[in-house]
C-alpha cells in the first residue's frame, strides 16, 4: 500500500509574475519575473536545482515545444527539464513532477514552473487550435464557456432550481472574486463589481455572461521544492509541506455512458476523495481553511464546491448565497481573486493557486491575509465537464 506524499516534500520558495495583459512581455520575461522572486525566496543558488518541470498548455502560440524554453530563459545548467501539458491543470502537473522527483530521492531540489503567454493571438478569449484529426471531424464545435455552460442546464434540471436563482448564485461568486481580486496587486482584474453588473452583462454562452467568465491572461508562477530535512538545513522554519497531490482523468464514461448526469465533475469527486485520504482529512468542510478552486466560469466554481465535498450535494447555491465562501465566510475561496480576477495563464494557474496558499500560511498575504490558515486546497481542472483532467492538491503547515 502506497504511503502517499503527505509531509514528504516541503515548498521552500515560490514566485509569481503579475498576471494580466502583459503586452510588454515575452514568455521569457514572464518566466524570469516569477523565477526571480522564487529563487530569492528559496535562498538557494540556481545551480542547486537538479531537475525542472515546465508547464505550458498552448505552447504553439508562444514558447514552442519541449523543455527548451525554460532551460533557455533561466540558462539552467544542462539539467533535466521536462515539459508537461494536461490542459488547464498543467501547472499542477509540473508541481507533481517536481514533488515526486524529490519524494523518490531522485533529486534533492526541483523546480516546477508554469507559464502561458496568451495575448499574442489578436483576439479575446482562448486561442483556437486543432483538436486532433479525428476529434475535429466529430466533436461538436464548442468553446470553453459553451462547454462549461452545459453544467448549468443539467444542474438546474437535476436540482429543480429556478434559472434566476442559479444565475444569482453565479453572480455572487463573481462579485466575491472581484472583491478579493481588488486587494491583490498581482491580479489581472482589480475592479469591484456589483450583482447587477453581472446579471446585465452580455451573454457569452447561455446562461454565462461576460462576468461569469475568467480572465485570459499572461503570467508565470513557480515553486522550488525539497525534502523537509534539506529545507531545515537551508534555515527554513515553519515549513509548508505537500499533504496530497491527486489527479483524476476522465476515461470517456461521462461523454459516452449514460451513468453521468452532466451536472457535476466525476473527476473532481474522485480526486478530492483520494486527496483527503492522502492528507488524512476526515471532514474537509471543517478542516480545510482556504480553497483555491478552478473558477474558469462561475458555474464551475459552484458545482465544484459540491464535488470537493465542501458543500452538500444540491447545497452549493445556498452556501454561496449565504457567503460561506466569501473572504469573511467559513471557508474563504479564491481569496486572491481566483482565475476570475487573478487571471488564467493556463500553465501557470495550478502553481498560482499554490502560491497564494503558501503566502497565506506564512502570513505574507498582506491586505487579503486570513487568520492563521493551516490547511489549504487547490483544485485545478482542464478540459470540459464531459471530459477533463482534475488535480486536487492539499498543502499545509508541517504537522497540521
Amino acid at each position: 500500500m502506497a504511503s502517499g506524499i503527505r509531509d514528504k516534500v516541503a515548498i521552500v520558495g515560490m514566485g509569481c509574475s503579475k498576471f494580466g495583459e502583459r503586452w510588454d512581455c515575452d514568455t521569457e520575461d514572464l518566466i524570469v519575473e516569477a523565477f526571480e522572486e522564487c529563487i530569492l525566496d528559496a535562498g538557494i543558488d540556481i545551480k542547486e536545482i537538479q531537475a525542472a518541470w515546465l508547464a505550458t498548455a498552448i505552447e504553439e502560440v508562444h514558447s514552442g515545444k519541449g523543455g527548451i524554453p525554460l532551460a533557455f530563459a533561466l540558462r539552467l545548467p544542462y539539467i533535466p527539464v521536462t515539459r508537461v501539458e494536461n490542459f488547464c491543470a498543467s501547472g499542477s502537473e509540473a508541481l507533481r513532477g517536481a514533488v515526486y522527483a524529490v519524494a523518490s530521492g531522485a533529486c534533492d531540489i526541483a523546480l516546477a514552473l508554469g507559464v502561458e503567454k496568451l495575448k499574442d493571438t489578436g483576439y479575446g478569449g482562448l486561442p483556437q487550435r486543432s483538436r486532433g484529426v479525428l476529434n475535429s471531424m466529430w466533436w461538436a464545435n464548442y468553446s470553453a464557456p459553451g462547454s462549461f455552460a452545459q453544467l448549468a442546464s443539467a444542474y438546474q434540471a437535476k436540482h429543480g432550481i429556478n434559472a434566476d436563482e442559479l444565475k444569482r448564485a453565479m453572480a455572487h461568486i463573481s462579485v466575491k472574486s472581484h472583491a478579493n481580486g481588488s486587494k491583490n496587486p498581482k491580479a489581472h482584474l482589480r475592479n469591484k463589481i456589483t450583482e447587477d453588473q453581472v446579471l446585465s452583462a452580455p451573454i457569452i454562452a447561455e446562461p454565462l455572461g461576460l462576468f461569469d467568465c475568467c480572465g485570459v491572461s499572461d503570467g508565470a508562477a513557480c515553486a522550488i521544492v525539497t525534502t523537509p530535512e534539506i529545507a531545515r538545513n537551508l534555515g527554513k522554519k515553519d515549513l509548508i509541506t505537500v499533504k496530497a497531490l491527486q489527479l483524476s482523468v476522465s476515461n470517456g464514461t461521462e461523454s459516452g455512458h449514460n451513468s453521468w448526469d452532466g451536472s457535476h465533475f466525476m473527476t473532481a469527486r474522485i480526486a478530492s476523495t483520494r486527496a483527503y485520504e492522502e492528507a488524512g482529512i476526515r471532514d474537509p468542510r471543517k478542516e480545510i481553511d482556504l480553497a483555491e478552486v478552478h473558477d474558469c466560469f462561475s458555474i464551475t466554481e459552484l458545482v465544484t464546491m459540491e464535488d470537493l465535498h465542501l458543500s452538500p450535494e444540491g447545497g452549493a447555491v445556498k452556501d454561496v448565497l449565504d457567503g460561506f465562501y466569501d473572504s469573511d465566510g467559513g471557508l474563504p475561496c479564491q481569496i486572491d481573486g481566483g482565475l476570475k480576477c487573478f487571471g488564467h495563464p493556463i500553465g501557470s494557474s495550478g502553481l498560482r493557486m499554490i502560491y497564494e496558499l503558501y503566502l497565506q500560511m506564512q502570513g505574507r498575504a498582506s491586505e487579503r491575509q486570513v487568520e492563521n490558515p493551516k490547511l489549504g486546497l487547490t483544485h485545478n481542472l482542464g478540459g470540459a465537464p464531459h471530459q477533463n483532467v482534475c488535480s486536487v492538491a492539499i498543502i499545509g503547515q508541517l504537522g497540521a
Partner: protein
Amino acid sequence: MIGLSGFGGYIPRLRLSRKSIAEVNGWIQPGIKRLGKGERSICNWDEDSVTMAVEAARDCLDNQNGKQLRAIYLGSTTLPFQDRQNSGVVAAALNLDEALSTIDITAAQTAGTSALVAALDAADGAKEGDILVLASDARRTRSAAQQEMTFGDGAAAFTVGSKDVVAELLGYHSVSIDFVDHYRGDNREYDYNWEERWIRDEGLLKIIPNAISEAFGKAGIAAEDVDVLIAPSTLRGVSAKIAKMVGVSEESLAESLDGVVGETGCAHPLVMLSHSLESALPGQVIVVASFGQGCDVLVFKTTDAIASFKPSLGISGYISRRCEETNYNKFMAFNDLVLQEKGMRAELDNQTALTQLYRRRDMLLGLVGGECDVCGTHQFPRSRICVNPNCNAMNTQKPFQFADIPSKIMTWSADHLTYCPDPPLHYGIIQFEGGGRFLANFTDVDVGNVEVGQDMRMMFRIKDYDDLRGFRRYFWKAAPSNQTRN
C-alpha cells in the same frame, strides 16, 4: 411490373419571404417586385445538395424496412464535389452495403428525370434490389437576379424496382435538343440566361408538348386519361398552356409549389411528383415532364399499393416543417453573396485528414457507433474497450447505427463565441433512446426554444467548410423533432 416502389422528399426548413428580397433589391430590379409574394425554401448554412439528398432518401426509405438497394442515381446540377462521387457520400451517410453502384447525373435541368429514366430502364426485374433515385438542387444566383425570387432548394427520392410498385411506369419519352436557355460554364459560379420570351415560345411551348404527346403514344394512353400533369415552369402561364396544347385539363396540373418552396432546379419535377403521389388514389395516371436541353416525359399509373405507402414526412410534411426567414442579409451571407467580416475565430484551419476520414468512414458519415457483445451497451464512437464502467470488455463491439435513433437533450448552451455562420451556435449532450450519447452540434433550432429533455432527431449536415482547399466536412447534428406544424 416496373415502377416506383416508394417516394419521399425533403425541403429545407428555412423559408425566405420573397417580400424581404424585393424590399432589398427592388430598387435595382423593379421587375422583381411583382414576384414579391409568398416565400422560397433556402438551405440552412450547413445544407447542400448532398445533405438534402440524404434527408430525402431517409424520408423515402424510413418506412420500407431496410429495403435492399443495388444502386443510387443522384441527379443534381449543384453537386458540392466535381470529383468525388457525391452519391457515394449519400450512400455512406445512409450506411448502405458497399456492394452498390453509385452514379452522379448532372449538367442539365433534366438531371433528375434522367436519373429516374436510367433507373427505370435498368429495373428489369432480373436483378435483386431496387435503385434509389435522388434529385437535389440548391441553385445559386447573383443577388437581385430574378431567379433568386423564383428558385427554391429541395430534393426528392424514389425507389425504383419491380416489387411493391406504387406507381407503374406505363412509358416514357426523351428528347435531346441543344436548346440553351441558360448555361453555367466551367469555373463559373452563376448561370447565364437568355431572353425569357424566346425560351417560352421556342423552347418550353414547343419541346415539351411534343414530347408529352409522344410519351402518351408510347404509354398507350390518351390525354383524357391523365389525372395529374407535372410540367413545371417559372414563367407565368406556361404550364397551363402546355396542358392545353396536349389536351389535358388545367385542373389536372399539379401544384407548382411556387411561392411555397420555389422551383427546386432539376429536382423540381420529381419534388412535384413525390408531392402528388402523397395524395394520389389507386389507378391514377400521372405524367411528369422536365425541361433542359431537351425533355424527359414519364407516364405512371398508381397501383393499389399507393394507398398503403407513406413517406416519413413527405414533401407536404417538410413544407409544414417551416421557419420563416425575413433576413435577406442572412441569405446573402449563407450563399457567399456578400463579403462578410467573420472574425479571426473563423480562420481556424479545417484541413481534413483523408486517411482518417476513410478509416472511420462508417462513424463519420454513417453515424455508426458500437454495441457491446458482452453487456449490450450502445456507445458512440465505437471503441476498442467498452465504455460501460461495469464492463470495459475489450474488442467486443459490433457496429450500431445511431442515425435513426431518437434522442433527448441532456445539457445544452447557446454559444456566442465560437464561430458559426448563424450564431449563436447551439450544442449539447444528447442521449439516445436505448443508450449512447455524445456532445453534438444542434441545427435548425430556434433561439430561446431549446430545453433539457427536448426530443431530437439526427440530421446529416455540413460540419465545417475548408475554404482554403474547397473541401467540406459532413457529420450528423441533432435537430428538434416534432417541428411539423399542421
